[in-house]
């Protein structure tokens, strides 16, 4: 895909969204678009405003000014419930799963089928179908969450957010606590979520992960837009956009290490 996609249906459009906490401006005139079947990565240093933006979209915080358009109409996302109603699901970093309940119970928590006589069989079948669509590798849905690995828990959390069939799913640092193989599994999962036609907003610190799955990379810096890149952007481009300079501690370090290896090569 070449650069920003424009051929797919626009779901979410932010224009000039700002957020102030007292005298502090956390977000200042943010513009962002998310299309159907697209992974938009949101990157930035600590304090860049990623989490604030996510919380505004999840209905946790209210924006101070600017407009959010969802499906072509301007909307106010006042509460988390309203965000879910619109079709914006969020998977927070701590996942929020009940370890004492099994996978099916966690997937359907709060949305059980038939409240006065739980339809365990129907829920189990739907759980298997959903996990099957995501090609998720969960050995048994009748095991408590406590027995699952970190990647499997992430899978369950993502699957749960898909249960209401949202338009957009926001993932907050889905790979932060995972090993190499589990990270790859979650990245595959994100691609399959995209292929199902959902829009995905991915927040991550890991540039490699971001470039592996994102269709567009939106960089925030100190609460402002600081560039949008395609997945072919180089590490240097991203780092300089994130830190705001071409000469920064990361590039200096990289240059130094390159220098070291050259010297070692010359010495041997």
């Amino acid at each position, binding site marked *: 895909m070449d650069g920003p996609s424009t051929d797919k249906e626009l779901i979410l459009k932010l224009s000039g969204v700002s957020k102030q906490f007292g005298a502090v401006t956390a977000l200042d005139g943010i513009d962002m678009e998310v299309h159907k079947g697209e992974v938009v990565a949101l990157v930035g240093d600590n304090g860049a405003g990623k989490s604030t933006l996510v919380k505004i979209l999840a209905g946790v915080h209210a924006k101070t000014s600017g407009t959010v358009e969802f499906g072509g109409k301007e909307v106010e996302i006042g509460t988390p419930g309203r965000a879910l109603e619109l079709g914006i699901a969020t998977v927070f970093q701590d996942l929020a799963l009940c370890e004492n*309940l099994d996978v099916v119970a966690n997937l359907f928590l*709060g949305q059980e089928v038939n*409240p006065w*006589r*739980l339809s365990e*069989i129907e829920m*189990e079948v739907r759980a298997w179908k959903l996990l099957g669509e995501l090609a998720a590798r969960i050995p048994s849905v009748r095991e408590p969450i*406590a*027995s699952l690995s970190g990647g499997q828990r992430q899978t369950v959390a993502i699957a749960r957010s898909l249960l209401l069939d949202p338009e957009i799913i926001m993932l907050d640092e889905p790979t932060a606590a995972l090993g190499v193989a589990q990270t790859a599994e979650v990245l595959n999962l994100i691609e399959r979520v995209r292929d199902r036609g959902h829009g995905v907003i991915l927040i991550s610190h890991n540039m490699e992960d971001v470039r592996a799955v994102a269709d567009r990379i939106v960089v925030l810096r100190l609460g402002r837009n600081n560039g949008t890149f395609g997945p072919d952007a180089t590490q240097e481009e991203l780092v300089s956009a994130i830190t705001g300079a071409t000469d920064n501690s990361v590039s200096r370090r990289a240059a130094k290490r390159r220098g070291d290896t050259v010297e070692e090569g010359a010495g041997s």
Partner: protein
Amino acid sequence: MTDTQKFDRADTRVREDEGLAGAARAFFDRVRSGDLGMLPVILGLFVIAVVFTSLNPVFMRPQNLTNLLFDAAAVGLISLGVIFCLMLGEIDLSIGSMSGVASAILGVLWVNVGVPWPLAILAALAAGAITGAIYASLLNRFGMPSFVSTLAGLLALLGLQLYLLGNSGSINLPFQSFLIRFGQILVMPGWLSYLLAVVPGAVILVFGAQNRRERAAANLSAPSSSVVIAKAVSLTAVLLIAVWYLNLGRGVPYMFVFFVLIIAGMEYVLTRTKFGRSIFAVGGNREAARRAGIKVERIRIYAFMICSTFAAAGGILAASRLASASRQAGTGDVNLNAIAAAVIGGTSLFGGRGSAWSAVLGVLVIQSISNGLTLLNLSSSLRYMILGAVLALAVIVDSLARQSRASHGRA
């Protein structure tokens, strides 16, 4: 995936535990990982029976066992209530006092004021519900730990009980009334008790077969019919033997059957309804429950109300057992016996784990020990010490099992 591939057997890492041997293997795996289930209770009951019978043969006589069941129903009902609090990771320490207040309300309204006893019972239950709602509001509004609010409630309720009973100190309830006969005399006719003993097995067979059919239709694996039949047959055999033995003496008390029926109803609520699932979720991870849209505050209110209401109901059964409402009702070891029964039966003090059946099993253990010690003519000082040690032991087992479950990746 082939057409015959079951959804839940697609992953090769899942071992298929087919048939009786498979069920046995799965059971041993569970026990090894710290998921003890009913095992400690059954072992405990066996040890208790052997020890007390060898010390005093009266213990195992059918008359004594019938007595034991009469006694068990009251504490058991209180224990059932506190399970709802324990499941949330909360506790209610005032259940004993609540049961005392309920018996006082019953005595005052029925005997002193002259209200018909069913209405007096309703008033007592309503007092329980209100008390529970107050505890939950203190927790929701002010973040007051239930440990503290119910400890305060323990004293306040005890005071209320003394105030209601006034100078007389105790009120005798009419001996000829249905309520007192229900609590002291009424046992089932033999044929009815045998009939009821067959019901649980029949229920297991019918619902087991239905479950197998539906799961097969939905392309899921189903427990093999041999396991279901073995369960039903063994349960029916145990119940028939118990009923036969009790019928050698006085028979099966209606009061105990009433208690077991309520337990079965509450087990359904806990395991098969959205409300029950919410209780497990709040006890397991409150924040996760809140984000899943569960109204945590409301669940707490219901749980505390259920707890105090059952405590009041237990107090009424206790009053009908003793045919009096006295200052001593609900004091002493009632509180801890009820909580200990829940924990011994397998409900965790740490929240998120438990079942209504744990009240039945636990109360049988506690009541057997209590009854056995009484038969030995031990002073109450020794009885308290021994029951205290049993409670400590139960909590230690719960704690150890929890650690083992954590290290084996089970909740």
